[in-house]
């Protein structure tokens, strides 16, 4: 029964750990270190400050402080000389644009204030979605440390004109001599850029264009080309799916750019239908965490299981191996067959043969979910061409290299080849927004504009075009790639004019450029897409399976390389928001690590002990693959397949980064042949203890294990939620006068009338929340939430107003139950460990619950926190004196204390400590100072702005007009914000929904944040 489940946050909780027990009782894990200066008698005695001196100092500082306070500073106000027409100081402008940085592709809206972009939100009209990285990209714009600011030649500044002249001459020289030059770029997915590149190649026939993605999905594109004749990635229309089987494809993460919106669209319990999602994988991925059923297998077994599934579905015998999960695969085959054209299979193995088998299964099923006609144009990188380039560089068959926004010296497994070869090239040019090792090694380093400073276009899926427009004047002396190439091709047209002409002749035909630019996207009519219909070719799957089987090398330890939700391929490694963003699964920030199963960790002697300050430590492991070895800390990960380890790419970047951001270990050297699975891994324990900055253990739930409610789709449909025995959303009961009564019948507080005016509620659907964390970064941007750095996060002083709690759960009872069963400690541990091999995972966004009967408000001695009539729990920072009583009395642990000044402080050298980084601050929200409490305000600045807009226009507030940063950032629609007193608002219905519940409802705090019970499709019916 679902309600009997036990939830836990950390492996340590399963052990009989008194530290966790103690920590669960402490709001602040760190004591104030008074002992350091008062407890040490010796120091006190040796101190030279006498009592009189002390009084003198006190007197002087008091006098100085009062004198300083008497005189206000003279503040200057400098208006524009000529005001731009569309700028009104104090009023935000929104622009529709697109992001394409080679790894992340999105249709977005950009909020600007006085000409500065301050926030990125999804362009929902264009079906745009944002991830944590897309949200954070606005801060990378202001990265004055890493961005290239002026063109340089060999480290010396050079003017653009001179650079053009010299490089042009060199290119012509190489052209005359017919010496090969390579233009190496990431995926750009831009039709006009493709044309410009073609023209450039036509001008210089000796130049070859190679597309290189640091994290490659070349296998999928190659397989699609082999079967459907077009090099692109297939699209997956998961919203229509009945059964989804994924073999290690992290499609809620970075697989094919992510499909979270479509996936969740197909999982709405209200409709009565939910797709059944089975994930076969070795690492615990975000997708696996959301799956209805997760089958754990080593990477080699995952590959064999894929072949075996093909066998089961088609009945054709192909070469394969038996795996421990064959019985489950058989069951899956039945499911898939039953679903027929509504079933779909995907695989995340970057291997053409594995991808071909996956496509073949989908063909055998006649899957309509696999989108062939509107294929994806992202991730165009070709491993084959890159390998050719590497061998050419080695043999000296390349004379020139022009790179654009790629850093092979950091990201390629054979980075030494690039590092060596670039030195001896006749021409090496790096066009890049950011400084990196490749830029440093190249002769010419040309600064490219950030996407927020550029014109451009995108073509992510067939027929869906996007436009990119500048939202700020270039901050530095930069030029965008297209302008550079146009110039070098001898074309004096500005790219802006070029793209306008290109769009009107090639894409828009008769449609309006201004409309397309305003909307940020343009959908081509059907007939222009029709010629993309492709007919599949027949491929001998038997041969493919044989090749695949040969490529697999089952070994004791297999490594599965992956990308984290926060850092991805590492392009934005210097972005403090992303570094501080806790990983959805491990809850660790500022690090990557080797994830290891509990069984392996025990066998090899690895553990993650919890320190008395709530931080966790880890042991180092030396991981060797193909003769390359790296030393990484180990994180014991429930749900990791035994015999497998996981390691994320994108960390360990050091060149040009701020010291604080130089964290983690570079895993790219292990990424041989761009294969995310590496066999024959050896692991040895290395010396040393690693200090993790993990928000996992600190925020325990103090034994209140009914925070989460989960039910199956069958229960949802058939069982009365309030049923006393079997109900899945039972009301809370409390003891009153020795009688069990419903909690809502008694109350400590007087009831207020909440029917006048607006009353805000936020509904969070746990079924739709994938844990992606876009809301966490959106909250950072909107509310000027400071970054505190690794050491502060480690001791539990992170400032996130909004966090996403991750709970593991097991069907079998945990510690207490085991004790009752009379199991010995050893037996208990073993039983729990088995459970922890594959726990269920639930994500729960947690922020201030804005209780109508708020425990924090009653204890504030200075009434700094008070309740608004509109349902918001308000926090007056200037009134707060920092007693922290409120945080102690908050049952949800959502209040954050400013231990330090995080702005203008060299100790916290993040974005709030420099002129550029401060440009991202939201001018409508104050930057809090030291010694005050802060917390989620339910974006009161946004609700007030919405009200003011309505007042100025003399109208009532429209339906669903109210928004918060988190709800607008949420692409799956899990977070819905609105006014419950407006019955037409979506949230008004959600508040009354049978799935609605409040966290810790027995406390009767009456929160204004409502959660919707998580429904899983356990496929019982």
């Amino acid at each position, binding site marked *: 029964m679902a309600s009997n489940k036990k939830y836990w946050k950390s492996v340590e909780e399963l052990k009989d750990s008194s530290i966790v027990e103690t920590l669960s009782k402490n709001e602040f894990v760190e004591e104030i270190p008074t002992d350091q200066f008062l407890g040490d008698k010796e120091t006190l005695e040796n101190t030279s400050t006498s009592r009189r001196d002390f009084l003198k100092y006190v007197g002087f500082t008091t006098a100085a402080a*009062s004198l300083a306070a008497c005189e*206000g500073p003279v503040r200057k*106000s400098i208006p524009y000389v000529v*005001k731009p027409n569309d700028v*009104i100081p104090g009023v935000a402008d929104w622009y529709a644009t697109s992001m394409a940085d080679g790894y992340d592709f999105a249709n977005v809206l950009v909020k600007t204030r006085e000409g500065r972009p301050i926030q990125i939100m999804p362009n929902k009209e264009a079906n745009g979605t944002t991830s944590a990285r897309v949200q954070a990209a606005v801060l990378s714009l202001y990265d004055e440390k890493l961005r290239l600011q002026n063109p340089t030649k060999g480290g010396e500044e050079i003017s653009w004109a001179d650079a053009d002249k010299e490089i042009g001459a060199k290119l012509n020289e190489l052209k005359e001599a017919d010496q090969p030059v390579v233009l190496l770029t990431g995926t750009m997915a831009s039709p006009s850029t493709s044309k410009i590149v073609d023209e450039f190649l036509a001008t210089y026939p000796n130049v070859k264009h190679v597309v290189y993605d640091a994290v490659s999905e070349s296998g999928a594109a190659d397989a699609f080309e082999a079967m459907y004749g077009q090099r692109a990635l297939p699209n997956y229309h998961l919203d229509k799916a009945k059964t989804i089987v994924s073999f290690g494809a992290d499609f809620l993460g970075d697989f094919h750019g992510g499909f979270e919106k479509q996936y969740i669209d197909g999982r709405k319990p209200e409709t009565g239908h939910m797709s059944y999602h089975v994930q076969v994988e070795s690492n615990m991925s975000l997708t696996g965490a959301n799956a209805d059923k997760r089958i754990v297998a080593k990477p080699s077994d995952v590959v064999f299981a894929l072949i075996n599934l093909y066998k089961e579905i088609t009945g054709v015998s192909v070469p394969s191996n038996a795996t421990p999960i064959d019985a489950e695969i058989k069951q899956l085959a039945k499911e898939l067959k039953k679903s027929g054209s509504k079933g779909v299979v995907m695989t995340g193995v970057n291997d053409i043969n594995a991808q071909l088998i996956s496509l073949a299964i989908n063909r055998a099923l006649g899957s309509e979910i696999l989108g062939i006609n509107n294929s994806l144009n992202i991730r165009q990188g070709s491993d084959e061409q890159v390998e050719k380039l590497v061998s050419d560089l080695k043999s000296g068959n390349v004379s020139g290299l022009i790179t654009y926004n790629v850093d092979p010296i950091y990201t390629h497994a054979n980075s030494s080849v690039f590092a060596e070869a670039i030195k001896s090239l006749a021409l090496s040019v790096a066009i890049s927004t950011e400084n990196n090792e490749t830029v440093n090694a190249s002769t010419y380093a040309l600064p490219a504009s950030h996407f927020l400073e550029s014109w451009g276009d995108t073509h992510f899926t067939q027929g869906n075009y996007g436009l990119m427009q500048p939202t700020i004047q270039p901050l530095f002396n930069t030029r965008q790639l297209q302008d550079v190439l146009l110039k070098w091709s001898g074309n004096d047209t500005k790219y802006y004019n070029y793209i306008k002409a290109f769009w009107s002749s090639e894409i828009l035909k008769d449609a309006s450029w201004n409309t397309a630019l305003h909307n940020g996207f343009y959908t081509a009519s059907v007939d222009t897409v029709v010629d993309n219909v492709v007919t599949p070719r027949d491929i001998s799957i038997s041969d493919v399976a044989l090749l695949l089987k040969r490529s697999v090398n089952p070994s004791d330890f297999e490594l599965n390389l992956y990308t984290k939700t926060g850092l991805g391929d590492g392009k934005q490694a210097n972005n403090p928001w992303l570094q501080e963003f806790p990983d959805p699964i491990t809850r660790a920030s500022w690090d990557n690590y080797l994830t290891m199963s509990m069984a392996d960790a025990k066998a090899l002697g690895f553990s993650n002990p919890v320190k008395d300050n709530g931080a966790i430590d880890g042991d180092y492991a030396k991981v060797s693959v193909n003769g390359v070895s790296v030393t990484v800390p180990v994180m014991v990960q429930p749900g990791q397949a035994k015999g497998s380890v996981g390691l994320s790419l994108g960390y360990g970047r050091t060149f040009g980064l701020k010291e604080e951001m130089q964290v983690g270990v570079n895993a790219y050297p292990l990424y041989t042949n761009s294969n995310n699975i590496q066999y024959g891994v050896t692991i040895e324990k290395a010396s040393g203890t690693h200090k993790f900055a993990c928000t996992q253990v600190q925020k325990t739930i103090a034994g209140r294990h009914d925070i989460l409610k989960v039910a199956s789709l069958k229960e949802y449909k058939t069982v009365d939620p309030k049923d006393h025995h079997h109900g899945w959303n039972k009301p809370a009961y409390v003891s009153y006068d020795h009688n069990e009564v419903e909690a809502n019948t008694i109350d400590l507080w007087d009831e207020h009338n909440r029917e006048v005016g607006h009353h805000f509620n936020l509904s969070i659907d746990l079924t739709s929340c994938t844990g992606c964390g876009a809301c966490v970064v959106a909250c950072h941007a909107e509310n000027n939430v400071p970054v505190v750095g690794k050491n502060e996060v480690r001791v539990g002083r992170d400032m996130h107003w909004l966090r996403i709690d991750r709970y593991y759960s097991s069907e079998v009872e945990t510690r207490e139950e085991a004790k009752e069963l009379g199991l010995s400690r050893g037996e208990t541990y073993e039983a729990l460990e088995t459970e922890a091999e594959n726990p269920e995972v639930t994500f729960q966004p947690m922020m201030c619950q804005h209780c109508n009967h708020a425990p924090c408000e009653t204890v504030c001695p200075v009434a700094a926190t008070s309740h608004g009539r509109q349902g918001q729990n308000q926090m*007056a920072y*200037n009134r707060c004196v920092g007693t922290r009583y409120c945080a102690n009395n908050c049952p949800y642990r959502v209040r954050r204390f400013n231990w330090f000044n995080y702005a203008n402080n060299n100790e916290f050298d993040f974005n709030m400590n420099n002129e550029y980084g401060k440009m991202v601050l939201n001018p409508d929200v104050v930057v809090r100072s030291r010694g005050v409490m802060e917390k989620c305000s339910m974006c009161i600045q946004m609700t*007030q702005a919405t009200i003011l807009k309505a007042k100025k226009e003399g*109208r009532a507030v429209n339906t669903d007009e109210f928004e918060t940063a988190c709800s607008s950032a949420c692409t799956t629609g899990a977070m819905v914000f609105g006014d419950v007193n407006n019955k037409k608002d979506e949230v008004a219905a959600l508040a009354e929904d049978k799935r609605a519940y409040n966290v810790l409802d027995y406390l009767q705090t009456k929160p204004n944040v409502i959660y919707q019970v998580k429904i899983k499709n356990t496929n019982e019916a």
Partner: protein
Amino acid sequence: MKSVALHNRLTRILLRGFTILLFFGFSLSSFSQDIDEARQKEGKKLFKSLCASCHKLDKKLVGPALGGVEERRENDWLIAWIRNNAELRASGDKDAIAIFEEYNGSNMTAFPQLTDQNINDILYYTTVGEIKKEVVADNTTTGGGSAQGTAPEWLIYILAAAIVVAFLMIASLLKQVSELKGNTTPETQSNIRRDLQELWVGVKNNTFLKVMSTILLLLIGAYVVFGTIFQVGVDQGYQPIQPIAFSHKIHAGDNKIDCQYCHSSAKHSKHSGIPTVNICMNCHKNISEVAETTVVDMGDGYVLGKEELDLEIAKIYKAAGWDADNLEYTGDTKPIKWVRIHNLPDFVYFNHSQHVTVQGVKCQKCHGPVEEMEELYQHSPLTMGWCIDCHRETKVDLKGNEYYAKIHEQLAKKYGVEKVTAAQLGGLECGKCHY
């Protein structure tokens, strides 16, 4: 603020001295000439209405300076030109074509409606110019400050006197009491020294008086201390020196320019906005100098005349990059660094448009009689108490605003009032202004 005020005063004294020097340096030579005032007046009227947007007497504007034009051109030619210059040019008149080309081919409007007499009046005006009148020097003395200060000083004296009288009465009472008690006094003569001493002894020996006096002293002390502390950071009356001696009195008062013509973002935004230089140039492109009679009294007897004020206008030209001689923008702009007067702390959110657009509050309500201020100062204390007082008293104007329709009905019922105040609407909640 204090140092600014001091600096202010010093500069004024220096500048005043400088002005006086200037005054004596130039001897005003008034020329006595018979002037037909009626004609001059008529001509001036026509000139101002028809010609002044493009011509000045002594300076090039869009067209040439017209002072003494009669000396340079024949009267017939002038009449023909003014009435219809295009016709004159078409007739092939060389002078006409030359002047047209000199001013980059900008067309002058034709004035066929003017009679010869009209034109001659205008020309008469261009010849005689303004009639100089004896300017009476503005000798306003700086006694204004004391007038305001008198009342409280009086009050203090009266209070002090009352206290002294009370003490004396108490003393004489005590004396009588002691006499009644049988303590005979050897001397009947009054001696102030002795009286005071007796008073002191009396007070010292009387516990009630001792306690009362201590309480009184403590209360006065507390009042003074709190009064001082609460004034910290309150900059009411703050009047810094601005980079340009801009007079709100001339603009908003004398010329009745609407506040929101310049502070245009007040109706849209949280900021009222300091007008950008292009707004100044809308008018000052044509107004490069003030009238002879214009004076700006900066207070403290420090008066700016035409000479100084024209220099102030030149500062706008410098900021806008306007070349007043060639009448073109050079592109060499220099933003003006105004000193901000109304400063709210960062933790306060204030929105002008809420007050100006939604509620229709007059600017003067918070900013005071700006149209009378030669030099702007902070009129209101801008303290939270001041905000809240207004929110408590102000009845919200809900008429014609659909937004308030429902909420007003509910609130009016709840509070049993006809019109709700801003406070009743939630205008006192912390989070409405602090986030």
